[in-house]
């Protein structure tokens, strides 16, 4: 199939133009879409090509724009309305949600409203509280609507074409940061993506990450980084937000058992909640699902530091994914057997050694400080093993495992078991996947305790382990 390369914005424009060419019923309406070509230039040149009867500049009246689109749609035209920013959709919601979404149902199928409302959503360009919102959750809650949010140029064109041909009202969400940042191949000629299915943007089997719009691209970047650690994430481009491709989601989760949803819309009542619920109801999850989303704040601030802190990003996705893959699976017997998702990894060739230390009483701070010192002395004990390389971590993050009632939370780079609180004198800890070492401190008796170190022998050899324990002992006894 031959293709040409377009930015997402150009793909939207091409989709509009091709469909206007093909179908004389298609008309565009919105503020500044004609002579100006739209605030983002999505309709640039279309006025000259198709004339003022089909590229209609409206007064500033979002409510009327949506209403008029509905009236046009009910009487044989195929309107595509543009609302400049998703933040201005609220005024149009009256007609979209209150009227258009209900038309087919309330007329028992006699009438439909084949209209598209396109809008630019999302933050990341210092637009401030009224020019940065994501609105997908509002509309995805409404039966009778379809909600689409493409992440790639080919889908922007193909799905927009499908939206225009759809017999029902479609809210078409274009992430404004993807407009120019995302370019890609678009098939030549007629291109329609009408299957309603999600898109596997990257195959994998360790966990499933779901996103759309700009967050999909953050998820892909995160997946690249995770692959460096040997974690192959499957990244799903949801793209059809309503209805959701439930089968596609469950198919992936059936293989991975782990779900991470990323969205730029706020967390509470966001689409992530629905996806997690679908997965939970289907019983396909092996671990509690996770969400990375915009915090529940009243808007996106304009100042760099605050906006950057609020927008979900690839680092948060990486961190959440690491935590998710190292979290214990549902119903696993601990210490677990081999197999994907299990707490312990039978594939790690472990070695252990034990020493005795003088320890008058146990202080977590004391033990932590000693672990930190020992990890500094032996950096490969705070690392991740992959067959390509041993990745040393800049930061030490200790997971505390205090037994079945308080297991390790995961996400750390080193595991500390019991640290002397338990009753048993000697026990050997197990190295958790993604880490190279774990330490257990036995019960303190007569001012003495046994300390056991377990290591991934591929990363830490016997001499290293000896140095680790020697450093630890010195710190604890000082």
């Amino acid at each position: 199939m031959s293709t040409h390369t377009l930015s997402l914005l150009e793909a939207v424009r091409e989709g509009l133009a091709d469909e206007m060419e093909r179908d004389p019923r298609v008309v565009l309406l919105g503020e500044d879409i004609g002579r100006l070509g739209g605030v983002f230039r999505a309709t640039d040149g279309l006025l000259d090509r198709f004339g003022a009867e089909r590229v209609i500049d409206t007064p500033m009246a979002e409510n009327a724009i949506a209403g008029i689109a509905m009236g046009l749609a009910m009487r044989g035209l195929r309107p595509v309305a543009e609302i400049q920013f998703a933040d201005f959709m609220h005024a149009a919601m009256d007609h979209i949600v209150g009227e258009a979404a209900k038309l087919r149902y309330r007329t028992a199928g006699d009438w439909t409203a084949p209209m598209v409302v396109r809008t630019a959503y999302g933050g990341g360009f210092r637009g401030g509280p009224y020019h940065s919102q994501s609105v997908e959750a509002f509309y995805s809650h409404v039966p009778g609507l379809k909600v689409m949010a493409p992440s790639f140029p080919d889908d922007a064109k193909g799905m927009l074409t499908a939206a225009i041909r759809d017999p029902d009202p479609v809210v078409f969400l274009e992430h404004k940061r993807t407009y120019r940042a995302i370019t890609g191949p678009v098939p030549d000629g007629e291109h329609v993506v009408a299957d309603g299915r999600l898109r596997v943007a990257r195959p994998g089997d360790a966990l499933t990450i779901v996103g759309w719009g700009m967050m999909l691209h953050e998820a892909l970047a995160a997946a690249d980084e995770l692959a460096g650690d040997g974690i192959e994430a499957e990244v799903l481009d949801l793209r059809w937000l309503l209805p959701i491709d439930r089968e596609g989601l469950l198919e992936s989760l059936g293989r991975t058992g782990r779900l991470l949803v990323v969205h730029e819309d706020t967390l509470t009542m966001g689409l992530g909640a629905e996806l997690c619920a679908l997965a939970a109801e289907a019983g396909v999850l092996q671990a509690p699902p996770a969400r990375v989303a915009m915090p529940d704040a009243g808007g996106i601030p304009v100042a760099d530091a605050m906006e950057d802190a609020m927008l979900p990003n690839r680092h948060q996705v990486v961190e959440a994914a690491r935590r998710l893959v190292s979290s214990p699976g549902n119903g696993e017997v601990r210490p677990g057997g081999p197999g994907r998702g299990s707490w312990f990894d039978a594939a790690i060739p472990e070695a252990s050694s034990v020493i005795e230390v003088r320890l008058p009483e146990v202080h977590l701070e004391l033990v932590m400080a000693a672990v930190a010192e020992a990890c500094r002395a032996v950096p490969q004990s705070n690392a991740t093993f992959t067959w390509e390389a041993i990745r040393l971590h800049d930061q030490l993050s200790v997971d505390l495992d205090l037994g079945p009632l308080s297991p390790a939370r995961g996400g750390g780079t080193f595991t500390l078991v019991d640290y002397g609180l338990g009753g048993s004198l000697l026990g050997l800890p197990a190295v958790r996947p993604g880490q190279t070492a774990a330490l257990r401190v036995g019960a303190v008796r007569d001012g003495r305790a046994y300390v056991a170190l377990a290591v991934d022998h591929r990363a830490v050899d016997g001499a290293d382990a000896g140095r680790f324990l020697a450093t630890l002992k010195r710190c604890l006894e000082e």
Partner: protein
Amino acid sequence: MAASTSTDTNVEVLRRMMLIRAFDSLLPDLYTRGLIRGSSHAAIGQEAVAVGACAALAADDYITSTHRGHGHTIAKGGDVNRMMAELMGREDGYCRGKGGSMHIADFSIGMLGANGIVGGGFGIAAGAALSARLRKSGQVALCFFGDGAINQSSFHGVANLAGIWKLPLILLCEDNRFAMSGRAEQMIAGGDPVKRAQAYGFPGVSVDGMDVLAVRAAVAEARVRALAGDGPTLVVAACYRFQGHFSGDTQSYRSKEEMAPWLERDPIPAFRSRLLAEGGLTEAEADALEEEVATSIAEALEFAQASPWPEAAEAWEDVDG
């Protein structure tokens, strides 16, 4: 010359117009240098409307502003230091960096907020006017809005209820002939927006928005009416947006020939010449004014750039009460 703080004097009226001009003239440069982010809209050419209207208000009267709000804020007595800091997203900005240009508000001077939503101010102004009535405070509210905003349904909803309730409200339409690329004559049914007042049963007044004293007089009259319990007035000030709607606006929707006569009627030199001619201002005083304004702006820039960036963690503050 000491900076006076009230617009009782014509010199202060001129100074505020000049300050708005100087402030908004900085925007393109600040934008190019990456010092301000997001969009901001200059009120250049429209200074007489903002200053004339606010000069007719009492200090505790309310205004609501628009996406093009710097002029309104300065006219009402806003602090250019804090405005500049907000534009730059700094800690000492009016919204501590959360809002930017289109969200500046200063309740201490009755400035109830710029608004990134066009038409967002109608309801707020009407509510503030009703509150003044219920609290018997003797205040009025003035709503600035554009020729584009008058086509929002919120205008019509509010005009109707302000009419039936005779609210102490002044609806001040800055008719600068354009809503982005939309020409007023093509977008406003009935042609002249002032006719809309008639439909809602209150007076509509047309005024030359390039003449600051004419604007002041029209608003002063509307204010008397509002305080007497006679209800709202629609004041339509004819003016012109001298610059593009946003930075990089090619302005393909208007011609140089069309702009020329408006540019010639620049309200600031006009008022300055008038004061000089009538003896209200000497050349020396005029020069001193220039210098004073330049100093204020330089100080504002310095203040804003010296102001710290907000901590990222502040993004999580003020989410709920």
